[in-house]
């Protein structure tokens, strides 16, 4: 006798291998297919769920592609003016020291217009976590040069490639922040492979756990892609990122337990 497998035979709790965390809303992501934002959102939310701190977490969305992060993250959130997320987070954490407070910022937001807020929040040793998405471009406004745009890299405002004599050098703000005594944990990761996703998630978990120690800012950079801004397919973009971004922005922990990691 022939056995027919139906849908109800497959969709059973015991067959469940992956489930979206309830801390991600059901709203359709506004990000381009292949973009690293969605994955990073998910692992932050998974971390908050696993730590059981949803009711005591306040997130801050920037201006940029992730301006609408609050549409996807099922936690209390505030949307900051461009670059000012660390100022918001400073006040929130100081007024509510028992909360987990994090900002989610892109490279233009954090390393150009928000440089002062970023550096001073770090220098004061604010007990907040910053998740920094670095894709070397202004995604939302249509692919203009960012402070982290690589030398020679094309963007809509560097159509012939970034020339450092004209436009300055790409800014390694993460290394700069690691130099400040106010940062306690600084790490640079990526989310383009399952192994990297696991590493990034571990770094984010670490950053959130360390926030409770009140030893200073914890900071995780995620080197990411922008296939639409870079004018590549998602696969090409990831490959380009590995070949060009990682040599300049090498992955790994930069500062652990308040000490710079020796290379």
């Amino acid at each position, binding site marked *: 006798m022939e056995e027919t497998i139906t849908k109800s035979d497959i969709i059973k709790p015991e067959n469940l291998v992956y489930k979206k965390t309830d801390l991600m809303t059901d709203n359709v992501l506004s990000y381009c297919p292949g973009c690293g934002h969605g994955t990073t959102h998910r692992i932050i939310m998974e971390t908050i769920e696993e730590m059981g701190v*949803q*009711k*005591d*977490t*306040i997130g*801050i*969305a920037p201006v940029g592609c992730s*301006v*609408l992060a*609050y549409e996807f*993250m*099922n*936690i*209390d*959130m*505030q*949307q*900051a*003016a461009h670059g*000012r997320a660390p*100022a*918001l*987070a*400073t*006040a*929130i954490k*100081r*007024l*509510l020291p028992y*909360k987990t407070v994090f900002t989610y910022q892109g490279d233009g937001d954090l390393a150009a217009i928000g440089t*002062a*807020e970023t550096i*001073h929040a770090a220098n004061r040793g604010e007990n907040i976590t910053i998740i920094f998405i670095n894709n070397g471009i202004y995604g939302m406004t249509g692919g203009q040069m960012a402070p982290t745009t690589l030398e020679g890299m094309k963007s809509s405002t560097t159509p012939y490639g970034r020339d450092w004599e004209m436009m300055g050098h790409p800014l390694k703000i993460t290394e700069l922040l690691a130099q400040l005594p106010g940062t306690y944990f600084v790490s640079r990761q990526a989310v383009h492979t399952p192994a990297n996703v696991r590493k990034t998630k571990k770094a984010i978990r670490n950053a959130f756990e360390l926030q409770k120690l009140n030893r200073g800012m914890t900071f995780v950079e995620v080197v990411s892609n922008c296939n639409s801004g870079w004018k590549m397919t998602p696969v090409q973009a990831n490959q380009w990122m590995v070949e060009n971004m990682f040599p300049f922005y090498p992955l790994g922990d930069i500062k652990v337990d308040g000490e710079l990691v020796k290379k």
Partner: protein
Amino acid sequence: MKKELRLMKGNEAFAEGAIRAGVDGYFGYPITPQSEVMEYLTAEKPHERTGMVVLQAESEVASINMLYGGAGCGKKVMTSSSSPGISLMQEGISYMAGAELPCIVLNVVRGGPGLGTIQPAQSDYFQATKGGGHGDYRLITLAPSSVQEMYDFVKLGYDLAFKYRTPVMVLSDGAIGQMMEKVEIDEQIPRTQDEEIRSKYPWATMGKTPDRERNIITSLDLDPARHERHNLKLQAKYREIEKAEIRFETIQCEDADFLFVAYGTSSRICQKSIQLCREKGIKVGLFRPITLFPFPKNDLKQVARGCKGILSVEMSAGQMIEDIRLAIEGSVRSEHYGRMGGIIPSPIEVAEALEQKFIKS
């Protein structure tokens, strides 16, 4: 109960008023002539008195955004600055108006434009009452004319800011900030506990609990129809404020043939000018708007009925005069007299200006 009396500077009275009103956080950046606010707060150790947070930020831009963060959590937050610093805050104030966040911003006005001078002025009237930053919004603007009001308007400011979920500006000036007067100090109001914030301000981002949807503090809405609705809601709120929150004072207006209209330091000078005019037989009164937005237009029109002239006295090129003329609708002749650049007019010159403009001309 006998009230406590102290001799204080206006800036100090504002700072003490903040502690006594149960403020949760002050975030500021030094600028003359208001630096005493933060100096007083840091010396007083309010974290020991009430648990209040005081933080010197890296800029006025950071200060106002710290207010956004704190206010978004339902906390009582404030900053103080002077004209150039307030200009830097305009982006953040606009965001707070858009996101409907309560706070108090004190502007101890100095002369402009640009770096201008550190001396007193009233040339930020337009900025305070017409919006200041981008977009369609208004700030409730309170104008203290004494050190006592610098103290009192902290509590009043928060009552209004939280009632309407909107930023409140206290528009003072360098003279009121720096001068010393007697101040009646109230009992300490306790700070609001976090659990109370959760129930009193259900919109606050205190962390999502299972019994409610997530809270979002934002001024962004990319859907035009929805965003227009949000704007209409804000406008309805401002109309409501115009109906319910007008405050003003009249001095010797009952028999007045002429009116001074003045706020803050100018209103103090005008009180002496009234005396000088009346000694000469010119019956002058003072109409002092306490709320500059909402401007007491109907009340002014009523008080001015039958008057022969109105003189707006401002330490500016003439800003409030525009609101006066809109209020009066041509029913009474209204003129402006002002000094700029940090000069405070003397009572004699104000009295003479009235004579010159309305009697001798």
